[in-house]
C-alpha cells in the first residue's frame, strides 16, 4: 500500500512516515497541495493536513477525488472540532485530530477506524 502524507509541518509528516514504514507501508511525503498533486501516481491513500497556506487540505482532497476517485482520502487537523473538520465529511474517507495515538493513526490507515478523533484520553 502506497501512502502520500501532506503536511506543511515537515516534522509531522516525517514522524508519520517513520511509523508507517515500521508497519510495512510505502510512504511519500509532500509539504504542500501543489507538490502533492505531482506525486499522486500509484498512491492508494492520501493523508493530508487541512490547514496549509495556499491550497488547503480540503481543496487538495477535492482535486485528488476528481483525478483519482479510487484513492482514499483522509484529513488531519490541529484544531480538531473546528469547522474545517466538520465540513470535511462529504468527500473525505477518514479524519484524525492532532496529536494522535499510533493505534488511532494505524486504524485510520487500515480503514477500520472510520471517522474518528485521534485524541484519546
Amino acid at each position, binding site marked *: 500500500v502506497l501512502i502520500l502524507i501532506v503536511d*506543511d*509541518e515537515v*516534522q*509531522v509528516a*516525517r*514522524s*508519520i512516515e*517513520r*511509523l508507517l514504514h*515500521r508497519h510495512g507501508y510505502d510512504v511519500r511525503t509532500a509539504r504542500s497541495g501543489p507538490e502533492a498533486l505531482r506525486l499522486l501516481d500509484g498512491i492508494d491513500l492520501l493523508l493530508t493536513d487541512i*490547514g*496549509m*497556506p495556499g491550497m488547503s487540505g480540503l481543496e487538495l482532497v477535492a482535486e485528488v477525488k476528481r483525478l483519482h476517485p479510487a484513492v482514499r482520502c483522509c484529513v*488531519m*487537523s*490541529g*484544531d*480538531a472540532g*473546528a469547522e474545517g473538520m466538520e465540513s470535511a465529511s462529504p468527500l473525505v474517507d477518514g479524519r484524525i*485530530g*492532532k*496529536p*494522535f*495515538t*499510533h493505534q488511532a*493513526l494505524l486504524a485510520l490507515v487500515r480503514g477500520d477506524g472510520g471517522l474518528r478523533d485521534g485524541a484519546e484520553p
Partner: protein
Amino acid sequence: MTERSRGTETRRARLLIGFSFVSVAPGAVFFALAIVNYHMPILALVTGVVFCVLPFAILFESMRLKTMAALSDAHTRLEAAREKALHGDRLVSLGQMAAGIAHEINNPMAFVSSNIALLREDLERGPLDPTLQRDYVEDILPATEEGIRRIIRIIGDLRRFARADTEKGVEFDFNEEVETALRMCEKSLGDCRLSVRLGKLPATVGRPREIGQVTMNLVVNAAQALKHGGEIRVETEASGTEILLRVSDDGVGMTPEVKARVFEPFFTTKAVGEGTGLGLAVVHGIVRAHGGSVCVNSDVEGGSTFEVRLPVASSSALRVARGASQGTGVT
C-alpha cells in the same frame, strides 16, 4: 436618562402643547379688541401679542423637550448596541485565540508524542541497531526536543501577553536595551540592513528585559515583511513626557483588514513555523502593562511603521522598585 424621567418629560411636553392651544384663543380675542377698540390700543396690542406669541414659545419648548427625550433614548439604545457588539467581538477573538492555541500546540505535540511512542515501541522490540540508534540521536530526538521548546516558547509568549510576569520595574537606560536587543536579533535578519538612530533619552522606569523583547519582536516582524532584503529603521526619541520607539520598514505593507487585527493573539499572515501570531500581541501586552501605547501606520504599497510610546515617569501599573535596581539582578 432613566425610563421614569423620560416619561415625565413626555408628559410635560404634552401638557405644554395642550396649554399652548388653549391660550391661542384669548390671544386672538385680545388682538381683535386692539384693532376694534382704539381707546386702549397699546394695552390690547401688548396683551394680544403676548397671548399669541406665548403659545408658540411653549410649543417650541415642548418640541425641544420631546426631541431631547428621543435623543437620549437613541443614545441609550446605541450604547447598548455598542456594548453588545464589543462583547461579541471579544467572544470571536477568544474563540479564534483558542483555535490558534490548539493549532500551534497540537502540531508540535503531534510529532513529539508520535516520536516518543515510536521510541518506546522500538525499545520494546529489543536493543536498537546502530543505524537506528544514530537516527534517534542525530535526527529524531533533536527534532522532538525542538518541538518541546516550541511549545514552551508559545506558553511563555502567552504568559507575557497575559501580563502574568511579575518582574518589578526598575530604572534603566532605554537605548541600551534597544541596542542589546538589536545585537541579539541581528543574525536572524538575513539580507536586511539596520539603520539605527537613537536620540538622547531620560532614564526611564520599567521592565528592561520586556523592552528588549518589544524591540526584538518589532524588528523581526519588520524583517519578515522585507522578504527580499531592505532597510529596517529603528529610532528612539524623547517627546514631552514620553519615550518614542519607532521601527519602520518599506516591505510588504498591510491591508486595512490585517492592520485591524495585527495585535490580536495568534493572528498571522505567515506560513507555519515562520510565525505563531504572538509576536505583536506580546508587544501590545508589554507596552500596555508599561502604561504606554503602540500603533501602526501601514499601507500595502509603502511598508509599515510601528510606534511605541512609553511614559518616562513610572506608571502606577508597574510595581516600581527604584532602589532595588542594583540588587534584583534584573539586567
